[in-house]
């Protein structure tokens, strides 16, 4: 399906090296990925992984050392300053610290991108008011940012980002300074804007829950490298890279993936993943009834990924190779994914 869609961004072999007092630091290493029109694309990674640098290469706030960043038909790195500024008007950005101007009213803040674009005063006002309506803050138009809450500030920032009718919205940790309830509201707003305005949204975050809630596809960045890219549901149910596993299974690194002690020495522990369908079935009960074998549930959780329910369970299999095989066969027959976590 991805091939049929228009590419908004195509990054190929992007490398960024910082040089500080003779010391080199590679922030991005050979990064290649594509973002398609109309999707919400997540970029997730631990702090220091290079995701903030990555998002800044998308509007050339950061110059890159190697590779190319294409935005529709333009190679961002080849643009002259004047053309770059023009193109930045269609690449809006919101930030963790909001970056609103304290000395200007909410309305003046929202109108700024239009002023840059040379829109007349009357039209600026009209458009800014319309954008404030989209984020539900038209009654705050004459307030100053200092009088707004964090969530309201981010809404104003979103209104400002939308004012010049951008093609893409970059969100740099846009919810990281907000509490969970406000985060949820902002994410819902972003989702609504994505659907109603067909705006491509790129979200940088270190929070798994943000990606889970609204992203269609996700790239996992680890040490400046793209560890994994794919549909959110796929990456979350079947993480392949170590970085992805660390994020999907928080608190369980690859060396000690099972935080629980097995009751039996030599027992086998597996992680089984249910998709939206099999999660409804009482699989474990059926297993016990059908085979008479028991498994020990060490950890279980379900989550909603991309609107579908997913569940995963870490279970300890019974002793004995034959019994273990019977249980694994049972899972396989029901289309449940089995991932070995320890032998």
């Amino acid at each position, binding site marked *: 399906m991805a091939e049929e869609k228009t590419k908004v961004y195509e990054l190929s072999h992007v490398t960024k090296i910082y040089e500080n007092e003779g010391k080199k630091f590679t922030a991005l290493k050979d990064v290649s990925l594509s973002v398609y029109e109309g999707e919400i694309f997540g970029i997730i990674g631990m702090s220091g992984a290079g995701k903030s640098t990555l998002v800044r290469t998308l509007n050339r*706030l950061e110059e890159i050392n190697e590779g190319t960043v294409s935005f529709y038909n333009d190679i961002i790195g080849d643009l002259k300053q004047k053309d770059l500024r023009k193109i930045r008007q269609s690449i809006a950005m919101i930030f963790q*610290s909001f970056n609103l*101007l304290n000395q*200007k009213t909410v309305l003046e803040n929202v109108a*700024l991108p239009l002023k840059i674009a040379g829109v007349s005063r009357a039209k600026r006002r009209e458009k800014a008011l319309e954008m404030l309506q989209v984020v539900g803050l038209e009654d705050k138009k004459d307030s*100053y940012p200092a009088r707004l809450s964090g969530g309201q500030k981010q809404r104003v920032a979103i209104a400002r980002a939308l004012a010049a009718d951008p093609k893409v919205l970059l969100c740099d940790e846009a919810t990281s300074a907000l509490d969970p309830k406000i985060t949820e509201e902002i994410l819902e707003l972003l989702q609504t804007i994505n659907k109603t305005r067909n705006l491509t949204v790129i979200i940088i975050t270190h929070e798994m829950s943000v990606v889970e809630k609204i992203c269609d596809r996700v790239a996992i960045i680890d040490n400046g490298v793209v560890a994994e890219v794919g549909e959110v549901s796929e990456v979350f149910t079947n993480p392949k890279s170590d970085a992805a596993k660390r994020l999907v299974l928080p608190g369980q690194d690859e060396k000690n993936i099972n935080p629980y002690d097995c009751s039996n020495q030599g027992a086998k522990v597996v992680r089984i993943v249910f998709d939206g369908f099999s999660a409804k079935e009482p699989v474990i009960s059926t297993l016990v009834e059908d085979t008479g074998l028991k498994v020990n549930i060490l950890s279980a959780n379900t989550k909603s990924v991309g609107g579908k329910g997913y569940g995963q369970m870490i279970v300890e299999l019974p002793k004995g190779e034959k019994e273990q095989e019977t249980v694994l066969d049972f899972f396989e027959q029901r289309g449940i994914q089995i991932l070995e976590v320890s032998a």
Partner: protein
Amino acid sequence: MDAYIKEAIIKGIWETIQMTTFSALFAYVVGLPLGVILYVTAKDHLFENKAVNAVVGFVINIGRSLPFLILLVLLIPFTRLVVGSSIGTTASIVPLTVGAIPIVARMVESSLNEVPSGIIEAARSMGAGPLFIIFHFILPEATPSLLLGGAINVATVLGYSAMAGVIGGGGLGAIALQYGYYRYEKQVLWVTVALLVIMVMLIQEAGVGLSKKVRRA
């Protein structure tokens, strides 16, 4: 106190106000752009330029390190060239302006440095050019701080203007010197000092009040 002394003091107040106002004004005409140049040419700023920054910074540092009294004397030929005389109120405005320029420039630079870098990043991400960023993002955001710095600078110029009395400038400083020092009329000395203190306080209060009035955060 004799009537002629009272008259002299009133004239002195007026001269001091004139000297301070014009010197501060001219100092800002030159010092504000210099401060902006220092700021934008610094490392990682809009027009990063090591050479320009170093040269401007060097000249400003020399200007700031010269004692004002020495500057007054050094500038006598230049003052003559500009206003045709080196004594009197008008003549004092020249060295006062020159002396205040580096102070203003550094104060402006430090006010601009208070603007969060995120604001500039946001401006760049919107596609704003460097001049637009300076005039519509940085300067408006720095205004309350610029006004506070302004009050300090004007008070400094006022203090310097009193020194100008030594080489024949007018104003309260000259009166304090002539009547208070040479004639040892203590009363006159204290009155002029009190007047200078009051004027500095008024300037400071006005600056703080104005800054508060325009500050939205």
